[in-house]
């Protein structure tokens, strides 16, 4: 397969992730959409690594995975803290941090 096939697939996945962030109101699903976008970028990085014949893109994708893990931990803690206060996971009901 040509590299552009992989890159276009990454673009499609990224756009679907954007759509999820824009459409859904549930904080958990928005979070999952962000994970989808990160993975689409990872696919692009690995494609570029094979295209250029070096491993640097794969190292970068490795770092993205580590940062995504850290992001998930903090983000889910925020969602749990928000749910404890507001009894909802909808982003529309959480316009203020303090009231």
């Amino acid at each position: 397969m040509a590299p552009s096939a992989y890159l276009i697939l990454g673009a499609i996945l990224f756009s679907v992730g954007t759509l999820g962030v824009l459409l859904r109101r549930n904080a958990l699903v928005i979070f999952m959409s962000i994970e989808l976008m990160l993975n689409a970028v990872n696919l692009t990085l690995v494609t570029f690594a094979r295209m250029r014949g070096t491993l640097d893109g794969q190292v970068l994708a490795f770092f993205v995975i580590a940062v995504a893990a850290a992001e998930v931990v903090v983000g889910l803690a925020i969602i749990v803290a928000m749910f404890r206060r507001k009894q909802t996971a909808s982003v529309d009901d959480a316009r203020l941090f303090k009231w």
Partner: protein
Amino acid sequence: MEKAVFIIASIGSVLSAVWMVFGENTVHSALALVANFFTLAVFYILLEAHFLAVVQIIVYAGAIMVLFLFVIMLLGVDRRDQYRETIPFQFPLAVLFSAGLLGVLIYTIRAAFTKTPFTGLAQANASGNTQGLGRLLFTHYLFPFEVTSLLLIVAAMGAMVIGKRRAPAETQPEDEDA
């Protein structure tokens, strides 16, 4: 062979992504995302990134999605306000903007990379993909690697601080509110 695997996996990948975004049930969305991560692991194997394919399954499908499902079960699934439009014309505008982004991306990719072939990683992977990655990670990328470890520690501590329950005296008036 690569073409057949790519076509099957890409169909599965796009379908599971769409199911994740439009599924009514949050648990189904999480399971669709797990399926999507598995198809991405297939692509990594096709792209000669064997170590990342395994990391993708262990870290993403294993650790991160289990964390997601854990929180979903903790909060309970509510499908009360999934598609409520808070901004007028939110649905058509969101579809329009995403389609526009996709159009721009595909146009750019086709303009820049249609004729570029894969160089292939046969040379870089000569002593094994994991060995090559490890050599790069602990020489050229040593400083970013150490910063990442610091980031993980800070994230773990931050999650503990955010997730901690407040002292009873502090939360009581808010409990009456809710």
